């Protein structure tokens, strides 16, 4: 056994099923209390299960140890710098967890009569109002469960909008820099994607846009944009773009994943967008949870409002002495209908509303300022020395909250792929930036520091990059074989897809 590896570390790779032992258990259950009957008298035996599922049999202390140990095999935002582009890994205030856990929120049944859930409905209404003000669009539905769900909602709204006007459009435009969920949502909504090129400063290529609009005259249902886009660039032609799309009869959809750059500075509604989704798990501090939960509320313009999902939280003026009240509106004849059960990810709403209350209006715009400042500072640091040479910025101009570097020269000169750099960063205790996205930048590295990082973190990251590039000049294999200090080293992802093992085999 290596001195540096304890049996415990080795043991950690065991699954909870491998720690199971017949007869052990954690839970004690309440007594049945009521007169018992043979189950078969209550449910026909052909509908009954023969053997209980082979869940682990293990006592509580070992369950806690198992998951605590697993947790230490995760890198997390509370451990270090996490500049994952497009993901807005900002600090998650613990206050939000505290208020979300209040029994009045956590143990409130979603089917509780609205008259007995006024606090929850008021909170949702207040959040709707806040997001509306931030997006510059008057109507908000909180129902979508994440950004991609919001995208689908937006496209279904677009379809309903056109159908209501007796139109049947088939195409949705999206720039080649768009996030994967955009085209995926387009297909799911029954539309066809038409790519629009990017110009030399990172914005939409206007001529191409005009061309695509001409080619698909009368067919274009919508243009989906992220602004600032996935290159961290604010598209200065946005007003012109909006004019063109609206002239062509299409809707303009705003992918709000990058809203963190412009809160309190510029509003999608004012830019001419009809529909916006907001990732509450990005700009509004809902923790990512290792892949969710999130929420993707949508804000829309007046012309889209009639089609919003059902039910909608509404405020009704008070009657006979009572103050105003809040209700769920189901009677929405033109609504596209439900996108999910009940009213949405309320627990996420509580956290995000707490976040908005904590920062306040000016706090939000300061947050965006600092996010943009941090991004530009780190960009500047990475333009120095070796990084500047080997990892040039894809579009050299001031960025907003994030920026994209190209590893092309690094690969050419040092034989180091962006992936190698990313893996080596793990040894330095940093989460790597988003890699190989957006697609149009070769060997792309997408860096988003967020506003909650200190200058020290940014400097340390820049130095780590410098160090990796330096060591690579002598010994490129160091990075090519990285990481070395992680619980496991590079994993065979191809095998995992070729011969997928997606569950554990268990003996009876």
């Amino acid at each position, binding site marked *: 056994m290596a001195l540096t590896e304890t049996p415990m570390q080795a043991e950690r790779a065991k699954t909870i099923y491998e720690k199971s032992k017949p007869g052990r258990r954690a839970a004690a259950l309440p007594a049945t209390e009521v007169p018992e009957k043979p189950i078969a008298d209550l449910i026909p035996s052909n509908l009954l299960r023969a053997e209980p599922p082979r869940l682990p049999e293990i006592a509580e202390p070992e369950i806690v140890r198992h998951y605590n140990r697993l947790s230490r095999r995760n890198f997390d935002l509370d451990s270090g710098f996490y500049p994952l582009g497009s993901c807005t890994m900002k600090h998650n205030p613990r206050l939000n967890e505290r208020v979300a856990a209040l029994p009045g929120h956590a143990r409130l049944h979603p089917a509780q009569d609205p008259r007995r859930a006024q606090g929850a409905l008021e909170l949702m209404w207040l959040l709707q109002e806040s997001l509306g003000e931030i997006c510059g669009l008057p109507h908000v539905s909180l129902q979508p469960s994440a950004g991609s769900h919001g995208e689908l909602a937006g496209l279904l709204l677009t379809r309903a909008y056109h159908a209501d006007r007796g139109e049947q459009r088939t195409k949705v435009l999206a720039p080649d820099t768009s996030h*994967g969920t955009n085209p995926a949502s387009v297909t799911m909504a029954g539309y066809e994607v038409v790519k629009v090129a990017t110009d030399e400063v990172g914005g939409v290529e206007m001529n191409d846009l005009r061309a695509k609009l001409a080619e698909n005259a009368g067919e274009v249902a919508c243009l989906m944009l992220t602004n600032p886009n996935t290159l961290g660039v604010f598209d200065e032609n946005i007003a012109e773009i909006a004019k063109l799309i609206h002239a062509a009869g299409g809707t303009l959809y705003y992918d709000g994943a990058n809203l963190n750059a412009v809160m309190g500075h510029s509003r999608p509604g004012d830019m001419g967008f009809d529909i916006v989704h907001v990732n509450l798990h990005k700009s509004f501090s809902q923790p990512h949870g290792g892949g969710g939960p999130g929420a993707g509320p949508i804000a829309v313009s007046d012309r889209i409002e009639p089609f919003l999902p059902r039910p909608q939280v509404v405020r009704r003026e008070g009657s006979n002495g009572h103050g105003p009240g809040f209700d769920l509106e189901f009677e929405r004849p033109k609504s596209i209908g439900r996108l999910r059960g009940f009213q949405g990810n309320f627990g996420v709403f509580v956290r995000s509303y707490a976040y908005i209350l904590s920062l306040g209006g000016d706090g939000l715009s300061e947050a965006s300022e600092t996010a943009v400042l941090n991004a530009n500072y780190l960009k500047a640091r990475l333009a120095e020395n070796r990084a500047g040479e080997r990892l040039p910025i894809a579009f050299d101009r001031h960025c907003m909250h994030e920026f994209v570097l190209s590893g092309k020269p690094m690969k050419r000169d040092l034989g180091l792929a962006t992936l190698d750099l990313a893996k080596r960063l793990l040894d330095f205790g940093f989460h790597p930036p988003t890699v190989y996205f957006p697609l149009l930048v070769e060997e792309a590295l997408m860096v988003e520091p967020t506003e909650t990082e200190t200058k020290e973190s940014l400097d340390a990251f820049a130095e780590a990059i410098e160090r990796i590039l330096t060591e690579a000049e002598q010994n490129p294999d160091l990075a090519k074989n990285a990481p070395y200090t992680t619980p496991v080293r590079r994993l065979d992802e191809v095998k995992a897809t070729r011969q997928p093992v997606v569950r554990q085999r268990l003996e009876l």
Partner: protein
Amino acid sequence: DRAEMLAAIGVGSVDELFEQIPAPLRLGRSLELPDGMSEAEVFERLAALAARNADAEEQVCFVGAGMYDHYVPAIVDAITQRSEFLTPYTPYQPEISQGGLQVMFEFQTAMSELTGLPVSNAGLYEGPSSVASAGYLAMGATKRAKFVVSRGVHPHSRETLATYAVGYGADVVEVGLEGGLTDAAALAAAVDGETAAVILQSPNFLGAVEDVEALGAAAKEHGALLVVACDPMTLGILKPPGECGADIALGEGQPLGNRLDFGGPSFGFFCATEAQIRRMPGRIAGETTDVDGRRGFVLALQTREQHIRREKATNNICTAQALNALGAMVHLAWLGRNGFRELGELLVQRTAYARERLAAVDGVELLHTSPVAREFAVRLDAPVGKVLDRVAERGIAAGYPLGREYPEFEDGLLVAITERRTKAQIDELAEALGAAVAAERGAFPSQEDVKAPLAEEAR
């Protein structure tokens, strides 16, 4: 810091950085939102809002309809609140995400065990939208565009499916209920060679346990996929969908380790046959090895997903519900193989008792007599809404009124049982319902003598 940083960037102020936004598009004013507050003030403000909700601590909760007031063990919070699970992003860098990835793998194994199907993903948003995703999968798998759906499927699921279907262009045909169960004949008649999927729920929305195997025959016959929505808490005792011929088993995961949270966040589980593995929506963790031969886990089959396949992806989902799935896994490990079955039995026994008890109440009768597991439906001989208001005054949320979604059951009430609902509470419910119905019918018994038991309960 600021000065240094601006200098390094080479600008005089942060505003300069925002000049790339055309002047007319700059807001030029403060957002019309309240000023920032201290942590203590935010807490007080939200606590005041929370205090205006009648939660399950304030009202004994017999409401279910897909989400249930189960007891979530303390270790679920302790584990899910650990920064290492709470704050990371989706595990794109497996070397530093083994914790989360292994949890997904363990979770997939558990859901596969529960449903009796070999493949599980790591979770979707929640129940109803999972049904819609199953429809999308079925269309891709069968190249057909018609769904036959039982009216016993959760109304939210049917409505969500319809919403999605308008998008990806499919027809939804609904089959009615007979005596609380899906009308088998009507179902058989509705399924044909154009049918992509037959979609059932068991126990269905009225609580009745369906004979999935028998109903599913029609699907097999015409080569349609059989999709079964189920309540995970019943899978310790009910025959798993996989053993009933289901191609896809899915459902709302909230009963497993997730709070009510006024409806979310929770998660949807989604299991299928091997044949569908490359059409699955959502993340799937897979086992593999590292360069040193050590066991490890990664996101497998990413070639299905939007970030690789873009418009050809099997689904558009990205951020899902990883933390909620962790809560479920911890809850399942805590219950364990035997505890999980015992809990299922406890629910069946107490539900049978409650059903009998309520049926015996004057003015209350069973809406159907088909077998049930943990939820059942009754009819009230008085306006449901008014009765619920009266019972609410006694600190009881008596159930879910069926009227809005089942006009044919205007007088219907759906009553759910969990291990938290004691015999005493059930007896109190029966008494309260009886008193309320009677009162609505015009007789007014004194409230005092009946209030006592609850007071005791609360103590």
